[in-house]
């Protein structure tokens, strides 16, 4: 027996070609090696010079010589380091894993000729090619629950089945007032007027509701609301950041383009393509504006004289761009593969540098608009501001970006193998090859990239965006990490629903409004938010959505709602942003000092705020508007004393309180009776009449302190600031 084993081993060492079947059945070994050994013993940066990913590597051995023994497997270095537990250095092997490796070595340590791709295997510590989010859609037709108390839309059947399994019953429908505020805030970011609520309360029928949803989806304010979400994700800021932090006064066309794209219900894949390569697809102001996505992030204009600092600054920016691109569109945190293969997801370092190569030919800068009229594809974009810009802060395209090398361990002076512009291998090897060489232009590279992002894995592309829609409608996504569908991200709470929505999107020409219409008209969206002790005991965090999740309004919505309620909201869309800061250049740094008082010219929707980096604005800041330094796929919701102080004391809140008071008292038809004034003010702010125990204290308060003081109190109430 021993003899025959030795023959097998030496036969193998002699590299007698083995047919494929001779290592058939070794896939569990490959998986084990991939998980425990190949992180250090494969690829570009071999530890100890040993490559365990393929036959020749193993035969070649390590820096300290052969790792297999020609005659006695027990004396092989490979077995010795395993047996003595010197390897793997971190995280020990289980007994059965050790046993498998021993048996495998004993059998002759067969390995395939082509290197094992260690990233392909999903295990308990990382995601492989078979990771759920990379798979084709798994379409399970909605199952109707006969006992359902809901008018089950397809969405509801998925939700209800999950609730049923948890022995949860959904809350009853929300009252019309809650529902109408909800749908207004969600779709256009503004509250309904008392008159709009009256109409809905008089006719809260299904037909009326659907008509309101359609009307809001068609409203220009819809784009203003949803563009703001998108601007969070793409970390849109209007100054460079870092030391000089120069303002970008011509960056607003990108924001306008996003608003117009949402309003136009642009097919999502086109929306993506235009942001990656709009300047190439349509070299008009529209396309140039769209492509600014690539340069909305920070940019260091002070990099020092040394070669090292220059290279690091360049690589840091590339990482930021690759990361934002892949997280935004594909839910992949590819930036983690800059220094080594991704520790958790199937993104190799090579893949990272392939994508980086597609972006290395772009630069930040201004492009003049020669003839503002010429474009043929102008949509509502040009109309947004009523004019086209003279110049646009956008991507500059380099005709010859040059070659790219993989940087070993991310070290800018340690160039490894050359790589060509391409995609991420794990999403499809063929598609990851763009067929471009190192002499290709930036234009060729980004056109190929745009094609790749939108076609390499359509299910993933669709899952990521429908999850974002769900996230903004319910406060939490079906996957609660909207930028990360990888191993470290959340798992879908309702995988079948996610795939259903993705399939719907792919089937409808990628129009987002239609998905939103489905969500908004579902029953789950229309449940009340009231607590229920029984349900809370089972699902306190409401992950199964037995109730509508109540939350505080976003910072921008708070400001916009005050403006509208006070009758002060200016309606002009687009164009350069309003400035609530003063620029001051001092000793090489640009300061953005908050203005004490905002002038009425600033009373536009908050999406039009000029949005510099390195300075925060008092009111919006405490209401969790994110720092535009990094992609913000979701916002924290905090409640702090500083927030209360800003809502009470900020000059803007006083200005709005005065404006509301003036609106209600200067109306010639208004009844000057204080009781009526209180009533009207409650109606304007809270969309209801005062209750019997509120009425007389409120009238007394108003008589003593005036209508502006009452408006200030109402603007600070939970009822105004919360969406229930």
């Amino acid at each position, binding site marked *: 027996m021993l003899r025959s084993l030795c023959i097998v081993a030496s036969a193998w060492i002699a590299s007698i070609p083995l047919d494929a079947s001779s290592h058939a059945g070794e896939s569990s070994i490959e998986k084990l090696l991939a998980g425990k050994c190949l992180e250090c013993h494969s690829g570009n940066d071999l530890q100890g010079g040993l490559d365990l990913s393929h036959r020749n590597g193993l035969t070649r051995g390590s820096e300290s010589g052969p790792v297999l023994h020609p005659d006695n497997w027990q004396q092989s270095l490979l077995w010795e380091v395993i047996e003595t537990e010197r390897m793997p250095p971190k995280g020990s092997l289980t007994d059965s894993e050790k046993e498998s490796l021993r048996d495998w070595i004993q059998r002759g340590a067969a390995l395939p000729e082509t290197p094992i791709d260690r990233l392909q295997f999903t295990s308990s510590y990382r995601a492989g090619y078979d990771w759920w989010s990379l798979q084709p859609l798994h379409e399970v037709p909605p199952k109707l629950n006969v006992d359902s108390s809901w008018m089950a839309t397809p969405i509801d059947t998925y939700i209800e089945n999950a609730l049923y399994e948890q022995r949860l019953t959904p809350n009853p429908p929300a009252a019309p007032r809650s529902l109408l505020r909800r749908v207004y805030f969600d779709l256009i970011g503004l509250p309904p007027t008392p008159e709009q609520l009256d109409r809905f309360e008089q006719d809260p029928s299904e037909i009326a509701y659907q008509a309101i949803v359609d009307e809001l989806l068609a409203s220009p304010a819809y784009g203003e609301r949803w563009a703001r979400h998108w601007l969070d994700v793409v970390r849109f800021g209007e100054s460079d950041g870092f030391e000089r932090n120069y303002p970008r006064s011509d960056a607003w066309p990108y924001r306008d383009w996003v608003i117009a794209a949402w309003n136009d219900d642009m097919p999502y894949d086109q929306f993506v393509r235009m942001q990656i390569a709009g300047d190439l697809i349509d070299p008009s102001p529209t396309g140039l504006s769209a492509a600014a996505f690539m340069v909305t992030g920070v940019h260091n204009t*002070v990099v020092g004289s040394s070669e090292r600092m220059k290279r690091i600054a360049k690589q840091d920016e590339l990482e930021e761009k690759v990361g934002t691109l892949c997280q935004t569109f594909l839910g992949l945190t590819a930036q983690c593969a800059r220094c080594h293969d991704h520790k958790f997801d199937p993104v190799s370092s090579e893949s990272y540098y392939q994508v980086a190569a597609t972006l290395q030919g772009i630069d930040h800068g201004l492009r003049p608009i020669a003839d503002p009229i010429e474009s043929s594809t102008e949509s509502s974009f040009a109309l947004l501001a009523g004019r086209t810009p003279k110049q646009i802060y956008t991507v500059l395209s380099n005709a010859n970006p040059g070659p790219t090398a993989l940087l070993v361990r991310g070290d800018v002076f340690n160039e490894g193998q050359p790589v060509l512009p391409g995609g991420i291998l794990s999403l499809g090897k063929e598609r990851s090859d763009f067929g471009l060489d190192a002499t290709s232009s930036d234009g060729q590279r980004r056109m190929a990239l745009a094609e790749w992002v939108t076609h390499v894995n359509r299910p993933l592309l669709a899952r990521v965006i429908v999850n974002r829609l769900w996230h903004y409608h319910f406060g939490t996504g079906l996957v609660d*990490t909207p930028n990360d569908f990888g191993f470290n991200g959340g798992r879908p709470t309702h995988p079948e629903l996610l795939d259903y929505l993705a399939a719907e999107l792919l089937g409808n020409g990628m129009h987002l409004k239609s998905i939103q219409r489905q969500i908004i008209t579902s029953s789950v969206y229309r449940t009340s938010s009231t607590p229920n002790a029984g349900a809370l005991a089972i699902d306190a965090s409401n992950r199964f959505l037995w109730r509508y999740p109540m*939350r505080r309004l976003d910072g921008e919505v708070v400001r916009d709602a005050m403006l509208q309620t006070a009758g002060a909201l200016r309606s002009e869309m687009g164009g350069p942003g309003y400035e609530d800061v003063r620029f001051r250049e001092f000793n090489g740094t640009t300061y953005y000092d908050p203005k004490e008082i905002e002038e009425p010219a600033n009373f536009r929707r908050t999406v039009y705020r000029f949005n510099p980096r390195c300075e925060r604005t008092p009111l919006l800041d405490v209401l969790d508007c994110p720092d535009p*330094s990094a992609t913000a796929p979701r916002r924290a919701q905090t409640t702090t004393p500083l927030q209360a102080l800003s809502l009470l004391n900020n000059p803007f809140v006083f200005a709005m309180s005065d404006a509301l008071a003036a609106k209600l008292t200067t109306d010639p038809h208004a009844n000057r009776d204080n009781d009526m004034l209180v009533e009207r003010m409650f109606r304007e702010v809270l969309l209801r009449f005062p209750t019997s125990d509120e009425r007389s204290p409120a009238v007394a308060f108003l008589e003593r302190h005036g209508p502006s003081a009452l408006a200030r*109190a109402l603007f600070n109430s939970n009822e105004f600031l919360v969406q229930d």
Partner: protein
Amino acid sequence: MRPFLSPTPSRREWLSWSRRGLGATAACMLLARDDATRILASDPKSSDNSGQRIPKAKRAIQICLIGGLSHLDSFDYKPGLVDLHGTPLQTEEQPDIFFGQMGLLRKSDWEFRQRGESGLWVSELFPHIAQHADALTVVRSMVTDSANHTPAMFFENSGFEFNGFPSVGSWLSYGLGSITDELPAYVVLPDGRGGPMGGASNWTNGFLPSQHQGVVFHPGPHPVRDLTPARAIANEEESATREMIALLNRNHLQQHGHDDLLTTRMQSYELAARMQISVPQVNQIDQENQTTRDLYGVDDPATADMGRRCLLGRRLLEQGVRFVQLYSGGPIAGAPRSSWDAHENVVENHTAEALRVDRPVAGLLADLKARGMLEDTLVLFTTEFGRTPFTQSDANTVGAGRDHNRYAFSIWMAGAGLQPGIAYGETDTIGWKVRENAVTWHDLHATILHLFGLDHKQLVYYHNGIDRRLTNVHGEVVQALIT
């Protein structure tokens, strides 16, 4: 594998963390509804398992010198540089400095002396701080990755060279919460000449929830934005307004049913009212007696700006602020410079800058000691990098200025849990590069967290694909600095 449910902690989880000593004491400030918090439980396999988990530090104050303090002229005594004065640096490499001009080597312009019982070398640049040498823990072997101010400062503050990562103070606020409900956990006091380059990015909460960001206290009667109404409001109206809001909220709560969001918002108004009292109180440094004022140099125009801020810093710490950050130096460029960035003339620049801070910082140390606060207060005196032993000038001249040096610089710490009166690490003969025991910002950050009883590998927050740490994937606690 993690179950599919979200990592979002419920309020109950927050409270259970408090019980384990990791959570915030002011849980009601922390209604983090969409909060991917994961402070991991103690891991027995963690490398940082020395058993020392009893925190020595409860609070910290950091004096952040902007521009790059010359270690060669302050805390790193290099007699070897005297011998080589006026000679060129013998090197083949192209050093990674900012402007790239390499003049001849220049000895220090300040006299160095051994101080106190410890015999620590400190130059005459800081005569007052030198008197506290026996309380200082000097690290002479700091290294950093960038010789460019803003990335280097971001690195010093957050462990990353990029905008948008949470700062040390934010991590401490997140990991430990506030000591008091009535003041922010993290307060920033910028130089009177202007904020640093990078502005609020230096004290940003980054992706941590917004209550962890540094709150700037401005000089003058209105230290915190929006602390008081933007217009004069009679007390009676103000309290009636609070009552009106409370009435509306009570009614709404009753009508809607209990929800943490609603009740926490109600509490936040009560805390806000208390903050309106505590902030002006803590800000009243005029209440301090003349001896204390003199100790900090509050009434001397030369030291008034830093003196007031150091004194205010002590008062803030006393009242329960977790982390106070003071800047020495404003924006980086301009002439004359308003920071430590002595490219043109070290003697002129450092003399002027040191004059502003030496006495106030020494006063702070003395005051903390006298009040018994140095036991559990960590004092940090840091800068983003050092300066070159050769001058920034033509190749054959000994110029007056020095360029940035990322290969070696000095910082010091004092107080809670530190080994006092020591100098750790060593640079080469001329102070150009670290020769022994290099300490990175990640190491220093790990050590700071350790002094607070936090394991830098366990204090994490999920963000875009990764459990982020202050120390990225690096950092070793420097045990030699700790008692």
